[in-house]
């Protein structure tokens, strides 16, 4: 017992003060929200297009605008590497989540992604959010970095957000993975078991668009092909901070301006 108390003192207080304080330090090579400057593109270059594993990039033939769909992006930065002009960069902004699929597409002048849910559902949720997690073909990275929010480093419980065992106790689902055909039935049944009104959060490139499994006959190009999705959280996997930000935004618990 004494040892356990000593250990407790040694381990100290480790919970991040975010969102009231600064977010934990992100690694130097962190790739966050892309920043695009199409005016830098060399004429008829298009080198980034075939380099992208998930067809996340497009160049409008008329306007010559580059667009990057963060809902498909694996943040591998291959496009940045092959671009001779530096037209695609990745910022350190971890706030990637959006309630609109369209707003995940980044261009020179696109508005920042934002979670703007119907006020009624936010009011209904009040100060708590109970989620049932469904891994539908996820590789255990999105799952792990969702799970980590429950550890003392993040302490998700202090926001009233919890992962529950039964869908009947849940306000909604947090889905990871491209939704394989083999999990389709389980996902549909779990969705039906959640009482209405319910919200669905799709975490990771797979759950948003299929990710690397885009257009595989074995999978369904993401959760939205089967259930209505309210919040999209890009990344492969998204950093825990990105997921936390998305969850806090969902229940309207982010201080203004964050």
């Amino acid at each position, binding site marked *: 017992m004494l*040892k*356990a108390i000593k*250990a*407790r003192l*040694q*381990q100290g207080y480790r919970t991040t003060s975010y969102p009231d304080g600064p977010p934990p330090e992100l*690694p*130097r*090579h*962190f*790739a966050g929200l892309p920043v695009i400057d199409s005016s830098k593109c060399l004429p008829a270059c298009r080198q980034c297009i*075939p*380099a*992208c*594993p*998930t067809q996340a990039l497009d160049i409008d033939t008329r306007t010559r605008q580059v667009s990057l769909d963060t809902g498909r992006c*694996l*943040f*591998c*930065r291959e496009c940045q590497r092959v671009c001779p002009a530096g037209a695609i960069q990745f910022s350190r902004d971890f706030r990637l989540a959006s309630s609109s699929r369209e707003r995940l597409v980044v261009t020179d002048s696109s508005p920042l992604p934002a979670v703007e849910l119907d006020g009624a559902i936010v009011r209904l949720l009040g100060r708590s959010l109970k989620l049932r*997690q*469904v*891994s539908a*073909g*996820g*590789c*255990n*990275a999105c*799952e*792990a*970095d*969702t*799970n*980590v929010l429950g*550890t*003392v*480093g993040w302490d998700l419980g202090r926001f009233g957000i919890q*992962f529950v*065992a*039964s869908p009947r106790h849940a306000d909604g689902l947090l889905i990871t*993975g*491209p939704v*394989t*055909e*083999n*999990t389709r*039935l*389980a996902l549909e049944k*779990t969705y039906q078991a959640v009482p209405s009104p319910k919200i669905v959060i799709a975490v990771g490139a797979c759950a948003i668009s299929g*990710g*690397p*499994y885009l257009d*595989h*006959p*074995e*999978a369904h190009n993401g959760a939205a092909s089967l259930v209505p999705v309210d919040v999209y959280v890009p990344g*492969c*996997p998204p*950093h*825990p901070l990105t997921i936390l930000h998305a969850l806090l935004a969902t229940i309207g618990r982010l201080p203004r301006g964050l």
Partner: protein
Amino acid sequence: MLHDQYVTVHNSQAFDCDESLLPDLERFRQAVLEAVAKGGRIAALSARPVNDGDSRIVAVVAFDAEGVLQVFSSPVAGEYPAIAADCPQAHWFERDLWEQRGIVPLGHPWLKPIRFSHACSRGEAADDPSPATCGVTDFFSMSGEEVHEVAVGPVHAGIIEPGHFRFQCQGESVYHLEISLGYQHRGIERAMLGGPAVRTIHYVETASGDTSIGHAMAYCRGVESLSGTHVSPRAQVIRGIALELERVANHVGDLGALAGDVGYLPTMSYCGRIRGDVLNMTAVLCGNRFGRGLVRPGGVAFDLDDEAVRQLTRRLKSAAKDTRVAVDLLWESPSVMARFDRTGALSPELCNEIGLVGPAARACGVPRDVRRDFPFGIFRFAQIPVSTWDSGDVFGRAYVRWLEIQRSLAFIQEQLDALPPGQILSPVGALAPNRFSVALTEGWRGEICHVLSTGPDGKFDWYKIFDPSFHNWFGLAMALRNQQISDFPLCNKSFNLSYCGHDL
């Protein structure tokens, strides 16, 4: 290299597949059984499609003590006498072979799909050998008074991947557990064909997403062997550091989860956080906590500068100290030890018979570790002692992890202190046509085996991935025999196997 009718190769040494060809199936079957009888272990067994819809059955038998791989192959069509009938190790492999190629291993004791891959090909295959819905199949069952069946999954209570578990119980005791997977099947092996292409590296990095480094290394070593690429010493060291960080992060997380499963919250809380700290060290290497984007054919995509080395050294020290304090609590808590001791025990004989790998095997006292037995990359020059324990139970699997954490942390520090100079990424040429390679690495769960071959155009015409979970799921089923069903979560956690790495 050429023996009479089989090939002996080292880890990721390219060869010509025809060299391994035996005249007929009977010779093949004998050769595999003899090799296993001599102490070999089946690392891979599958059927490779060759021209005109024909297949060739291929077996890779690993001799751990000698550090060599024997490869056998033979033409196969329609059906053949199952190897599993005489050699339990072949059980899962032959189910996979049957499911993928439609070739029937006659006399197989329990022939049914392992992934239900045909359930998702949407009725395209006419001679569909497997059921239409994942998990809908006959299960091994028992009858009798007081015998009852418990079904769990595919959706579980926590944040975990899907899988179905079917227990045959009498009262609280489990007589038999059957594990039915396939829910995570994404078609990776199929999609690897015709590669390398832009997505290939992402398939291997997400084959089992908590083992991105381990699988990416196996893939890269395979590609490097087929293209004759030399990887610089500096890149080898960075890869080694990343692989060991992956091991430490997951082992620490597992110890925390084991503590949580027996209700010992201090270690659970501390280890949960420390795991995150170690993932953050991997992010120091490349920006991603799972090491995505780091390992690339030819070396690594990110270099380590002095600042990063200093940061890692500092973080390693505090992670080592925090982990020791957190983990020592486990061994000193009688309530924890009472649950760990003698729960889910496997004997070394059974371990060898069913071909377990990784910490699960080492916890049975079987000193099996690809880093030592088939050394690759930096492990050819810097050895990490193999950690074993002999109890074969939950305690053994936990304690081996703790030993490995300490040794890996020491290794990482040594490597950081002596980082060789030089470039980090060599150019990779085209793959040689009609060549074959078997690449093994030791992921944190155990042996990762990638078997790859190229066609006349130098593109993959076959790609097989064997995650350690492929070998070990059956070990979990065996560990549950005669256990209390309430110990299932604990036993399960002590293996902590990958669903997606199995289902691919």
